[in-house]
């Protein structure tokens, strides 16, 4: 407990501080607290909402926690009856509802099922307790080829990341360690591709994919996405910090350029590669628009595309979209937690100057 308190109350002190609190400490504290609420809060809301029933999802005011209606088994009735908390002139009590006719509900006290009380529906509130609608998670698995889509998503993500790492590092190597004519032109081309969002080249890209025969194929999803400009810049910046003397020494030892790339440069670039790997995994896993365009056969759907089938024309099944969104979020978060220590070392090492 004292460690936590020490953590929470660590401050800068020094001249200009009041009671040991410097203004920078206050700002820091406030900023971090606000950050925690604003950044994590909505995600928490998403996770909690994924456990709610469809009716609960549309109610207002929305409740933070998922609830399920309390029911009671009452003598003389086959099915459990929903419980309500009733407040009228007779005082607050909990009753089970038999049926509702218009604005009047017929209710009974579970302990005294013979006597039917008539209660105005405005006077009653559902008696609810915290409960998770787990069927939101299990239903899609039953009706929905989750494992198939998972396999496809994993395939796309892993293969795309592997190819990305390879091709981007090769290109970054050429752009950082070689002087050749047209180098600037290549750099500008790479920069230019950064400026072209997918939605803009969608139709021409579709014709090309169709002409090459990659339509409805996972490779059609993978190949157009592997040459990332961000990756090239990131890796190039990092490789620029590798001393040229290393390469010269290797060349004098009769190492081929390929060996220099493979044996020297690539291992030294590991932190930046880890960063790119994280980004690539996140991007490919969350890719939506392009797989949606390329894939129309169920067998090759990725998770994000499969998720979208819950959006019909006239009816969007939010409860399944939410639960499956949470499920698709989990792997990315895991990868991130695992590899996150590389991030700052990776980007720091680029010495972006």
């Amino acid at each position, binding site marked *: 407990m004292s460690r936590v308190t020490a953590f929470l109350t660590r401050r800068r002190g020094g001249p200009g501080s009041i009671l040991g609190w410097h203004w920078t400490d206050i700002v820091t504290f406030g900023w971090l607290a606000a950050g925690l609420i604003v950044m994590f809060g909505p995600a928490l809301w998403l996770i909690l909402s994924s456990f709610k029933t*469809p*009716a609960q999802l549309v109610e207002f005011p929305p409740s933070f926690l998922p609830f399920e209606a309390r029911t009671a088994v009452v003598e003389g009735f086959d099915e459990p009856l929903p419980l309500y908390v009733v407040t009228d002139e007779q005082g607050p009590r909990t009753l089970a509802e038999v049926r509702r006719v*218009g*604005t009047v509900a017929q209710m009974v006290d579970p302990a005294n099922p013979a006597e039917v009380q008539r209660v105005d529906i405005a006077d009653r509130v559902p008696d609810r307790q915290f409960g998770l609608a787990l069927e939101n998670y299990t239903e899609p698995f039953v009706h929905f080829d989750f494992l198939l889509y998972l396999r496809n998503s994993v395939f796309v993500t892993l293969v795309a990341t592997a190819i990305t790492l390879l091709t981007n590092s090769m290109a970054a190597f050429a752009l950082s360690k070689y002087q050749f004519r047209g180098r600037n032109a290549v750099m500008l081309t790479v920069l230019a591709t950064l400026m072209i969002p997918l939605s803009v080249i969608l139709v021409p890209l579709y014709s090309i994919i169709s002409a090459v025969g990659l339509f409805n194929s996972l490779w059609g999803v993978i190949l157009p996405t592997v040459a990332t400009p961000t990756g090239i810049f990131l890796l190039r910046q990092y490789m620029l910090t590798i001393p040229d003397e290393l390469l010269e020494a290797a060349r004098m030892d009769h190492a081929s350029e390929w060996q220099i790339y493979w044996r020297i440069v690539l291992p030294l670039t590991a932190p930046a590669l880890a960063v790119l790997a994280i980004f690539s995994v996140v991007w490919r896993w969350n890719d939506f628009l392009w797989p949606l365009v390329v894939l*129309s*056969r169920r067998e*090759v759907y990725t998770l994000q595309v499969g998720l979208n*089938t819950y959006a019909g024309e006239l*009816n969007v099944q939010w409860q399944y979209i939410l639960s499956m969104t949470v499920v698709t979020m989990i792997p990315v978060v895991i990868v991130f937690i695992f590899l996150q220590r590389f991030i700052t070392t990776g980007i720091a090492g680029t010495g972006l100057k």
Partner: protein
Amino acid sequence: MTTRNLRAKGALAALALGLMSTTALAGDVRIMWYSDGVEGEVIQDLLNRFMEANPGINVILDNVAYKVVQEQLPIQLEAGEGPDIARVTNLKLLASHWLDLTPHLADPEYFNTNFGAYADWMREDGSSAINGFMTQLTLTGGFANQTLFEQAGVEMPGEGATWDDWVNAAAAVQASQGTAAAFAIDRSGHRISGPNVSYGANYIGADGKPAPVDAGTKEFAQKLVQWVADGKMLKDTWVAASGSTYRAAADDFVNAQIPFYYSGSWQIAQLSSKIGDAFDWVATGSPCGTAGCSGLAGGAGLVAVKYTQNAAEVAKVMEFLAQEDVVREFSERTLFLPAHKGVVEKGGLVWQTEDKNVGPALDVFIAASTQIAPNAASLPSWTWATVYYGALANRISQAMAGEMSLDDAFARIDTDVAEAVAAAGGN
């Protein structure tokens, strides 16, 4: 286009190594299907039965989002690709891509008799081809929250009530019960077309091309804008999106935030499952205007695609799904109105639901289908219908948002539609 494709394919063949493309086997039939509710499960059930009876044919049902059918399917069709069968709502627009099943069907007359009334909705003008059939008929119409009206002590308007009657009654309920608004209409040109026609509108010009916005459309649009300004119409539905994006107000009705909701018969299944026991609701038919009390018919059709490799098998699947007992079962389980003449005439559909509000609501829609005005009846088979709907939704919502005056909006609708017609002129 075919030679270009071939050339491109040849030139880039090297890249086709190691593809993971699935190849269709002879005897495979792919259906592209979207669902609003349980139709996906029902049709899969029916198809399983078909496959048991026909072991040589493998039917694969691809469940996709509606957006895919709207946006991706047209592109696939243009490329000469696509599924073998598709469930589509923009039938007329894509008519040139549908297969004529007549030579492959065992009994074409069956289709003509039972689905002939709506065949023009999916085939090119002047053609007598059989492209498929309507999986359901939908009709636009209103729903009212009976319980809210009761609580407010306001009587629901009866037969022959006008739009003003309904909105004013709902506004009284709004005032008494403190709901967010009095009523809402889905954000869609299709949805307001029934009411427009009820005020005398006619979209189709003498030459079959779109006519400029006329007095009927203007009158209803003016009412809509006024109702938004008054706070009677739920602003969120129309104002909260731009372009021709579709937005429905079903959730607000389910939430008892609006006493009156103008949408259509396809909502019944969803309303039933989401409202459950919370309140009593009824279907109201379409409120009246000066020229009628019309809604707009529509629905999704199951059509065969021209580029299929397995026309004979496709025909078999279609024939099975069009059988009277299959249509009957499909309708009863999905709570959709059937389009099959034989089923409709025999009647006696047993809706598979425990909700006592569903049966009467469907009956109201069936009765309301006799009130469809001629100007509305001709819309589903009109090539330019979707263009007109899109322009209406786009510009009227801008007027509602206060970005332009209604007169400017009408002028813009005319130019938008004219440009779309001109652009497609050569094709």
